[in-house]
């Protein structure tokens, strides 16, 4: 033991000392942290989110930074939803990189750092997860609307088209579970009937037996509020079983399209409206920059993190204008409430709400010809 622990301790100390010298924040730099899914099953999300942030930073720095501060970020990996790596990342970001703001994603990793964030007054933004558990937590702000607020929009549309029975299939995660409850309640309040409810394992890929059950119940519509690739596999399985009923949900991504292929045709989902073909000049420059760099259209996750970077820029501006230090997270937090309306990449403005969520324009999409097409809009 003696030898083992000694060697271990020496290793730790040497390495800690060496890094503490080499990694102190530059005074003229505003550095913030990101804790994203860089590896594991959700690594596609991490990639697209980081792309959004990266483009924003390039633009901001090209324009001379903010009040003399150059922007930069450090990305850490929560390995697609693991909490210990998220906590390690938090400790590293706050004590080595000395950040005061963190962009995070996924609900479990985000939740796992919030006790510490509150204590250390670090402002945390989540632009990915949409779990109701993320509401009403000090220092946490979500720039995604909660699905519960979005889902009725879709369901009403389908109700009006004359569909009456619904089957649901959703992942055993907090957000899908609450979405399923909300969707079910709303559908029943309209007078509809839920003929089958199935909860599935997160990350499963074979849903044909679940689809068989749905087929046997012959519902008018299918609700799948799962996230990630799960939705893609569900859609694929449902179509594979020859079920023609419309499928609706809350999630859509380019990666998911690769799973479904043609099967996603007709899939309906309501979401914050990010329109790549928008006439809004800001949106246009972002889409063009993204396309130039990555040779594909940005999705709304990229847009969310791009937007978040600009929100941070605005907050830093407000703090510095008042003579404050942007490395004080509580100042950033206060600065939000100076004016909770921020310019949005979605066009127009978005507004932070007291409960930690936000208001954004919502839109109902349908996949037509492999692309999401807007069929109904609701402004933020």
């Amino acid at each position, binding site marked *: 033991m003696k030898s083992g622990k000694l060697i271990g301790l020496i290793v730790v100390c040497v390495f800690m000392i060496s890094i503490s010298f080499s990694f102190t924040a530059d005074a003229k730099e505003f550095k913030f942290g990101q804790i994203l899914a860089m590896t594991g099953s959700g690594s596609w999300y991490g990639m697209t989110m980081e792309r959004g942030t990266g483009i924003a930073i390039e633009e901001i720095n090209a324009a001379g930074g903010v009040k003399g501060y150059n922007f930069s970020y450090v990305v850490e990996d929560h390995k697609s939803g693991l909490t210990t790596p998220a906590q390690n990342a938090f400790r590293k970001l706050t004590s080595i990189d000395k950040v005061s703001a963190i962009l995070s994603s996924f609900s479990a990793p985000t939740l796992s750092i919030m006790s510490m964030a509150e204590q250390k007054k670090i402002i945390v933004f989540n632009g990915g997860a949409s779990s109701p558990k993320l509401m009403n937590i000090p220092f946490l702000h979500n720039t995604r609307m909660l699905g519960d607020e979005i889902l009725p929009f879709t369901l009403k549309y389908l109700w009006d088209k004359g569909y009456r029975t619904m089957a649901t299939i959703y992942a055993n995660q907090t957000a899908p579970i609450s979405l399923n409850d909300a969707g079910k309640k709303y559908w029943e309040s309209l007078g509809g009937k839920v003929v089958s409810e199935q909860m599935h394992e997160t990350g499963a890929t074979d849903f044909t037996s679940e689809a068989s059950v749905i087929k046997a119940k012959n519902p008018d519509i299918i609700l799948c509020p799962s996230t990630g690739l799960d939705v893609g596999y569900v859609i694929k399985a449902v179509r594979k*079983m020859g079920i023609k009923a419309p499928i609706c949900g809350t999630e859509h991504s380019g990666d998911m399209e690769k799973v479904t292929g043609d099967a996603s045709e007709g899939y309906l989902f309501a979401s914050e409206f990010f329109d790549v073909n928008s006439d809004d000049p800001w949106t246009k420059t972002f889409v063009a920059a993204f396309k130039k760099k990555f040779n594909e259209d940005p999705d709304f996750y990229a847009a969310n993190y791009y937007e978040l970077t600009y929100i941070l820029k605005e907050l830093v501006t407000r703090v510095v204008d008042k003579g404050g230090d942007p490395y004080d997270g509580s100042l950033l937090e206060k600065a939000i409430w100076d004016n909770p309306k921020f310019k949005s990449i979605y066009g127009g403005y978005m507004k932070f709400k007291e409960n930690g969520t936000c208001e954004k324009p919502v839109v109902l999409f349908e996949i037509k010809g492999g692309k999401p097409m807007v069929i109904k809009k609701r402004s933020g």
Partner: protein
Amino acid sequence: MGLFLQLLTRGIITGSLYALLGVSWGIIYNTTRTFHFAHGFIYTFASYSILVFTWMSVPLIPSLLLGLFTATLAGCAVEYFAYLPMRKKSASQLSIFLTAMGIMIAGQSLIHLVFGPDSRPLEGFPEHVISLGTVTFTTVDLFTVLLCWIVIVCLFAFLGHTKAGMMIRAVSSNPEKATFIGIDSRRIFVLVFGIGSLLVGIAAFLSTIDKPATPNIGLGALLISFITVFLGGVGRLGGAVLGGIILGIAESLVIMVLPTEYKMMVIFLILFLVVLIKPEGLLGKKIA
């Protein structure tokens, strides 16, 4: 009844693929008694090799063959360069297992590094829905089942009727005697790793038609592979086939009695109970 038949059909389709995965791992484990955790990496590797060839505009069938070939080589290389030297040093099962895990982690990361985390679908395979009464499946399902069984039958024919097959069976049933009659077990081991990797490559191909490849697909395939083998019975390749079918059907039918979120758990619960009650597996011989 309609639902039951439909679920049974699904179970058989999944089960066929599981059976193929099972024999691919089983032939390696039965012969070499190596807990080949890196099998999952070979699975991912095979998927990506096939994909890479299709991206180079090689037609589907030649891509498949080239991809399988590289996967086979990779499997042999793992045995020859990683396990064999350790076995020579008579390393413990556990340290071989950890080496295999190292290969799995490093390999998976390497694929991520080269190809990124995106889902990569294998395109160009026609998929049509076929309905027979209440039972629905697709052309891909049909192809999967057929190919799985053709491959499994070929494997058994190979093991049963060729010199090499006989030697493999000999080494797996009595390695010591095999040495005494002049069989070089090291070469047989490499051969067996090649065959197992070829088979898992075929399984990977069949799943990639249906589900896009990502760097992480290997672990799930690996879990199924060895659960199938231990369920059916170690030392009996037929056991792996039976185990695969049972697992596939159980996974599909369980939905009729239990909430679906317990589906994955049921697989492990079955394994748990089998190891508890009949640790030698369904077809295995009693352990002394």
